[in-house]
């Protein structure tokens, strides 16, 4: 069974909410990044999103743009990130890992080769913010033909409205609901219709509903707890890591505290 599905079933069986983080691959360097992943697994993280740096990250705000740029300068590329994940899997890391990436990176690598290498290295899911539902067919059909292929996760937004049933129909793993319009890493000023929109998604979704964009602490989502199955933090954690010079204890504390408060 896919690691994301297995883990989220466990979490739900315990009646808990899941916690997902996003970090940019290759920071502070490849080795440090692998350590940060292991530390987060140890602290009880449920799913990790690993951002594959791209030159033109149009869905990201300043924090992730800067991290992405820095990582590219240091020579991070998709091939190296695959190697890192494969090595982690060899070291008994069982944390579900999702690649968050832009479609050009996949296209350049080759769709078949990408699907096969994900399966081989142990990548469990892929989120591609510039590959909307209407453009997914080509990649999805290749993933369908690949054994142990990653799940192509669906993004849903406060303005998706009538598109929601279509987006969740075949969704697997979880659906990634964004809290506000625009890009990652803005403040926690969620969209005015966030509650009704999340309820609309929850009504029709067969898989867990996760909320992301602009979340920093469990308090940010406390009023939405009845509706969501978990949440995602990216820019805030990246900032925290940059500011603390990648203090692993700090990351672990943050994850433990967040999970505890989320499930309080």
């Amino acid at each position: 069974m896919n690691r994301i599905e297995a883990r989220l079933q466990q979490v739900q069986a315990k009646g808990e909410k899941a916690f997902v983080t996003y970090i940019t691959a290759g920071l502070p360097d490849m080795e440090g990044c692998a350590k940060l992943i292991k530390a987060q697994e140890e602290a009880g993280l449920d799913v990790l999103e690993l951002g594959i740096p791209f030159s033109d990250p149009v869905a990201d705000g300043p924090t992730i743009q800067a991290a992405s740029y820095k990582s590219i300068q240091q020579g991070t590329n998709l091939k190296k990130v695959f190697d890192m994940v494969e090595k982690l899997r060899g070291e008994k890391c069982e944390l579900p890992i999702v690649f968050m990436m832009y479609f050009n990176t996949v296209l350049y690598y080759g769709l078949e080769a990408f699907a096969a290498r994900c399966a081989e290295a142990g990548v469990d899911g892929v989120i591609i913010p510039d590959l909307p539902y209407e453009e997914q067919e080509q990649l999805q059909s290749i993933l369908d033909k690949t054994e142990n292929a990653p799940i192509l996760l669906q993004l849903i937004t406060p303005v998706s409205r009538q598109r929601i049933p279509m987006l969740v129909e075949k969704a697997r793993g979880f659906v990634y609901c964004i809290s506000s319009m625009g890009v990652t890493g803005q403040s926690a000023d969620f969209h005015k219709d966030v509650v009704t929109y999340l309820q609309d998604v929850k009504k029709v979704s067969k898989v867990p509903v996760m909320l992301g964009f602009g979340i920093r602490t469990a308090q940010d989502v406390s009023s939405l707890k009845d509706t969501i199955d978990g949440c995602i933090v990216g820019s805030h954690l990246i900032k925290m890591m940059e500011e603390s010079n990648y203090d692993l204890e700090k990351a672990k504390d943050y994850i433990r505290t967040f999970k505890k408060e989320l499930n309080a």
Partner: protein
Amino acid sequence: MSNTYYGEFGGQYVAETLMNTLNELEKAFEEVIKDPKFWDEYNYYLKEYVGRETPLYLAERLSEKYGTKIYLKREDLNHTGAHKINNVIGQILLAKRMGKTKVIAETGAGQHGVATATGAALFGMGCKVYMGSEDIERQHLNVMRMEMLGAEVVSVQSGSNTLKDATNEAIRTWAKEAEDTFYVIGSAVGPHPYPKMVKEFQRCISVEAKRQFMEKEGRLPEVVMACVGGGSNSIGMFAEFIDEPGVELIGVEAAGMGIESGKHASAMALGKPGVLHGMRSYLLQDEDGNVQLAHSISAGLDYPGVGPEHAYLRDSGRAQYVSITDDEAMAALSELCKLEGIIPAIESAHALAYAFKKAKTMTKDQAIVLCLSGRGDKDAHTIESYFSGNGYLN
């Protein structure tokens, strides 16, 4: 594939946040193109405000020198100095119909920014123009013009601080503010329906040119050509000739310091299919699939991608795409100044430079129709710097 594609190129590679926006835009656009009232209004402003139609001028001294008839479609004579205004008038009229109150735009050299600021002033809309911090430095005159016209120029500091990054930032803002904001894209690029929309709003170039040529020569020209950055003036120049198989279509990209130098903007010559700014098309990329920086002395051609219909016209063999270096373009620019008394934009000078080469293979009874997309006033600084041997400003 669906109607959002030209062969394998085009599509809608945008965030889910923008899908409803694009669907609404497509619906509104498909409605207006069937509405004669919309076209009446558009044509009214093109005539009374922009100053169309523009002349199709037989450049006599050039024709004599190069041994074939060279006709120039004088888009440089439009209000604001280039073809960009044709498209802006169309898109802003559409934005108004859709009830939007603000427009945003990206700009490299500043021509599309100035055109958008102009259109926004004309129709009383708020206007923000995204421009790379490096372009703001080197195109100061256009920044001042935009500000005089009441637009806010937003300096973009990310990536290479140029057009590509300004476009990224405009897309980010659009995703945030689409409810009341219309994104006016200046080139034949972006997600569907933009490439199609830009083509329809630039089609006036070839509608006029075809009729004007017919009136003068009683037939169709042998060759039609234009410069290609993203490809807006060229798609407008090609539009009415695509279904005329006897007319050779040539797009001229920027070879910068030479294709082999790696410092160029020839997406068709060396790019591979990729995805950027909402479209699948030829794209300059490095060995990791990151977008490579383009180089051209002409800021308007300094773009790593190209419009999807051009990619399709190339692969289907209907149009041919060639490249011209900075030096060749500047020599052609100088020649047009001295032989015809016209200072062209450096972008347009790329097409001219190739016309001179092409003319050598043609007879004196044959003819080239070339889109002189803009005037060179904006480039005075760059031209001066180049010819005084101080290198490029770009």
